[in-house]
């Protein structure tokens, strides 16, 4: 814009039609003119455009700035540390509330409705059977294939039954059930509790003096603690049957021969290892799902984040605890 210009006006007689893009263009001209101290006359603009421009400037622009963008790394680390300690504090409080609610339950007080508990038992148990069946059978088939390729070279294909049986009972049954339930049930718990948080349903419980942990979290956790070991036993059986399909169809073994070899290879204590892991996974999935749901913010986005976080946390906890238990049992 020429510095000699002192006065700016608009002529729009030949303008047939216009939309908001005209205003954006005019505003950029006005801003530039104001910076140079040029007097502006908007009277020549179409009447509607003139009114919209006035309206857009009726409320002064609020000056905000992102406080965090001006912070030094030290301040940011401090802020992150405070936020992290806050989260840890929440988790500790949540753990304490669960222990108290569980104590109440053991003492014979009923902090939740029996109907809710059986609903969650059904969701964790019977409704999870199809997906657990599919995955366990396929894991059995995969283990059997992998073992067969190696063992056939030594004419030791009968030991495929040992490999599949021990693999399922000691590790894969519990691990696969845990991962499936983390995705199916842990995510559902986080979404349910997160949505209740958004709808103020959890606040309503608190202001009525009813513990949300006792009423909402405990039945969910108890159902998982009960059902995951049972699902693990079911997954073990389905995995062994999956392995037997390969044994019978590809390794020329009879079904009786395969199952008898499996029976001989597995000790009851080894089944106990798998059940112990499944029990621990049940507690961890319930804990992670419910914690993330209770920590959820008050928006649809926060519910999504809580759900994702519940699944990720559950799977990480499952793998870490699995490694830890395996190390303790076999060192």
């Amino acid at each position, binding site marked *: 814009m020429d510095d000699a210009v002192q006065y700016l006006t608009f002529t729009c007689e030949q303008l047939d039609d216009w939309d908001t893009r005209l205003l954006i263009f005019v505003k950029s001209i006005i801003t530039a003119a104001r910076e140079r101290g040029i007097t502006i006359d908007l009277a020549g603009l179409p009447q509607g455009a003139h009114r919209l421009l006035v309206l857009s400037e009726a409320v002064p622009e609020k000056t905000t700035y992102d406080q965090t963008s001006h912070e030094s790394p030290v301040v940011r680390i401090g802020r992150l540390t405070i936020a992290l300690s806050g989260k840890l504090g929440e988790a500790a409080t949540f753990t304490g509330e669960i222990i108290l609610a569980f104590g109440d339950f053991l003492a014979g007080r009923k902090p939740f409705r029996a109907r*809710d508990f059986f609903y969650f038992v059904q969701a964790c148990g019977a409704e999870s059977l199809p997906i657990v069946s599919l995955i366990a059978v396929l894991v059995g088939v995969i283990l059997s294939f992998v073992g067969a390729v190696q063992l056939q070279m030594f004419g030791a294909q009968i030991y495929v039954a040992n490999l599949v049986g021990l693999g399922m009972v000691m590790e894969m049954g519990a691990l696969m059930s845990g991962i499936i339930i983390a995705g199916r049930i842990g995510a559902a718990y986080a979404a349910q509790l997160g949505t*209740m948080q958004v*709808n*103020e*349903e959890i*606040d*309503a*419980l*608190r*202001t*009525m*003096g*009813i513990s949300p942990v006792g009423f909402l979290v405990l039945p969910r956790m108890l159902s998982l603690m009960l059902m995951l070991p049972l699902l693990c036993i079911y997954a073990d059986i389905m995995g062994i049957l999956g392995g037997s399909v390969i044994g019978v169809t590809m390794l020329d073994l009879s079904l009786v021969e395969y199952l008898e070899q499996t029976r001989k290879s597995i000790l009851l204590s080894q089944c106990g290892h798998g059940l112990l892991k499944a029990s621990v996974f049940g507690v961890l999935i319930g804990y992670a799902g419910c914690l993330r749901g209770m920590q959820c913010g008050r928006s649809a986005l926060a519910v999504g984040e809580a759900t994702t976080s519940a699944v990720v946390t559950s799977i990480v906890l499952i793998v870490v605890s699995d490694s830890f238990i395996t190390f303790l049992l076999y060192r």
Partner: protein
Amino acid sequence: MNAAITVKGLTMAYGSFVLQRDLNFTIERGDIFVIMGGSGCGKSTLLRHMIGLKPPAAGSVWYDGENFWELTDEDRAAVVRRAGVLYQSSALWSSMTLAENVALPLQHYTDLTPSVIAELVSFKLALVGLAGFEKFYPAQLSGGMRKRAALARAIALDPDFLFFDEPSAGLDPISARNLDQLILELRESLGATVVIVTHELASIYAIATNSVFLDSDTKTMLATGDPKTILQECTDPTVLNFLTRGTGKREVRTV
């Protein structure tokens, strides 16, 4: 008259962001007390401090001469048990029928038999005009009906204090007016002290006996007292602008 709830030097903050500071007011027993102010000034947050959902950054809330936030957990729960809350979103438990929603506090706090509880539930639902809706789920009701069902739950234990967060939000004018009448009747019949968060001027003039005005610019209260008196006597331009809907005319309009 004696003080039912007293707020002394209350400061509300989210982290380092101060929402309101130095709030001081008294709610007398039997008052219909309105917390008013523009959007985002902290009305609902003040309510959360008063009903025990969020501890204040500074200051105190007193119930019947006891400092609420310094009570033991058990004593605080006992105070909360004397209160019924109607949330902005109704906050009915979506997995339960209306009857189960209203029955839960009765089952939790009384030794009444299931048949007596069922009768009480039907009576409370009838009080709010929802007789026969016992087996309906919240999702099957309109917004106004959900509000009334939530009110039935809030009065399940015949509370001494009733808190309402934006009761007429999302309601048509007739439903909002009916809800105002219902609040008035319940206050008369239960003898409860009522605290309402709202910015609906018609409701404020129709039912409020006392109020506080919160301002988001100065971050503190600008007026307290009967809103009709404030309307006539207040000289603060922000309060006057709010109470006259920007017209400057000091007229009480309840419709």
